[in-house]
């Protein structure tokens, strides 16, 4: 079971505080979407509006073409996997998973068969008789997932589901969530503040900030060609170079880079650390001195001071085998397609 979701002009106020402003978003049926943003950006509020726990101040929510704006959570084709799992502590895992089916009036034998099947899907096929406090945090989370999926919702809402897990378990669960989503085909909307998690898992990342959508698109596009400066910074480390745009391109202290379609005036040129390379390249950025460096296994993260602009510090990822002695003089270059230019007053 799956359905598409359309949010049109959704705004929400908590008293005087404007938590969401004019959210327009289309989610295709069967898509895995992450809502990504810093704390307080409105992503959880948006999820609550999708789940029916909050009624938006204005705007409309359509799920599978039907207007759900004012429909109660129980009557929506959505279920939520809560941040703290919210399992029923007095019921066995079995009864937890079967709860939604029991509410739908399914007979005992039938709903227990479905619960077994869902528990098996999340790898807990033999633990059905246990109580939530008898299993680990990671297992509780799987139960919460099985419980939410047992009623075969059209849309599953996940509220920072991996927040309480350690890093290793988190990575494993990301893969598993994605595999399960492929298997059941349900539309997943997953809230997170971790951009690596969002990239690992999503078909589409929706970046939010201060109650607005900054950018929405596939992970590679959002990371490599972010729509706004905020998105560029939030998706990963970014070097900023003050620049001035005119007819010939964006002029920075390190040279002029192409800036097609950017209106003239003050601007910020952005380059990711891994896009800075040493030696000759298409776009020469001049010599720089290595100030310090740290070894990260897959790369060396180095702080560089360009000779043309001693006041700037650039972060570059050097190959793991490179020599990283402080004071080393390096020739910097980049490929033009890795360079991003944002006008100064871009939102």
């Amino acid at each position: 079971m799956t359905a598409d979701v359309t949010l049109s002009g959704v705004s929400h106020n908590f008293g005087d505080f404007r938590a969401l402003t004019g959210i327009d978003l289309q989610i295709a049926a069967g898509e895995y979407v992450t809502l990504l943003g810093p704390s307080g950006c409105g992503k959880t509020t948006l999820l609550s509006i999708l789940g029916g726990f909050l009624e938006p101040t204005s705007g409309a929510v359509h799920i599978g073409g039907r207007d759900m704006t004012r429909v109660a959570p129980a009557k929506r084709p959505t279920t939520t996997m809560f941040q703290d799992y919210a399992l029923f502590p007095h019921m066995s895992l079995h009864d937890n998973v079967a709860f939604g089916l029991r509410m739908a009036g399914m007979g005992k034998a039938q709903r227990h068969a479905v619960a077994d099947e869902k528990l098996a899907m999340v790898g807990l096929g033999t633990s059905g008789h246990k109580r939530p406090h008898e299993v680990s945090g990671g297992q509780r989370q799987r139960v919460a997932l099985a419980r939410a999926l047992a009623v075969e919702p059209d849309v599953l809402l996940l509220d920072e589901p991996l927040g309480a897990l350690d890093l290793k378990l988190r990575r494993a669960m990301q893969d598993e969530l994605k595999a399960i989503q492929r298997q059941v085909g349900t539309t997943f909307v997953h809230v997170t503040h971790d951009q690596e998690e969002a990239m690992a898992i999503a078909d589409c990342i929706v970046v939010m900030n201060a109650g607005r959508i900054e950018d929405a698109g596939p992970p590679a596009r959002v990371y490599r060609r972010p729509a706004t400066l905020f998105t560029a910074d939030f998706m990963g480390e970014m070097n900023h170079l003050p620049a001035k745009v005119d007819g010939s391109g964006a002029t920075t202290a390190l040279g002029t880079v192409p800036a097609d379609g950017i209106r003239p005036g003050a601007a910020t040129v952005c380059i990711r650390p891994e896009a800075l390379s040493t030696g000759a390249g298409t776009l020469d950025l001049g010599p720089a001195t290595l100030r310090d460096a740290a070894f990260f296994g897959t790369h060396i993260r180095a702080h560089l001071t360009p000779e043309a602009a001693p006041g700037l510090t650039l972060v570059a990822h050097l190959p793991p085998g490179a020599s990283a002695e402080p004071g080393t003089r390096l020739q910097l270059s980049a490929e033009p397609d890795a360079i991003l230019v944002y006008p100064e007053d871009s939102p």
Partner: protein
Amino acid sequence: MMRAASWAYLILAYGFIYLPVMTLVLFSFQGSGLPVPPFDGPSLQWYGEVLGDRDVTDALIHSLTVSLGSSAIAVALGFCAAYGLARFILPGSALIRGLLIAPITVSYLIVGLGLLIVLTNAGLALSLLTVAIGHVVINLPLAFAIIYASMGAQQQNAERAARDLGAGELQVVTLVTVPMVAPAIAAAFFLSVTLSWDEFIIAFLLSRFDITLPVEIWSMLSSGLSPRLNAVGSVVFLVSVAGVLILELLVLRRRRA
């Protein structure tokens, strides 16, 4: 030396608390007609006599009915009040909470007198029903306070999940909230039963022909000391102990696990 002193202190303290009760129980097994030393038992004759006395057995049944019934009502009302105040934003909820708990500070005598005036003016004849009403009045604040304190964010999230999975409000309360706060509900119920079981003043003021066991003991006292009284008192004590034991075994132990 210090060790011996602390043991002596312990024995003295417990002796101070339990000596009266132990004396009462001991002389309920007295062989002769007066519950005073020397002890010449043991004998069960006074228990036999007491359990054969219709007045006493009736009073025993009345006490059980009143304590179980009034506790059930007090706990049900206390749960409803706690659920409403813990889950919904109501105007003046701090005041409502305060007014619900305040009767704890009022003495049973005042509650009993007040109810006596109100009930007789309302034309309600004094009976076991009026005693039960009095016990609901004194036990409701306690039941409310115990159950309200156990309602936290954990239940609230589980209730939200239940609604999300399609549960109606009644199903949320019966399948999620009540089972989750069951230890508090049981604690409130057994505490309320024990308090109602040996409550005297209100039961005395608000009853007439059908009386509860403490009132029966009071009327037996007017005919002087007798091991019969000790036997009745021991039965009252035994039931209270049973209540506390059930509370401990069923509720408090499970919570620790």
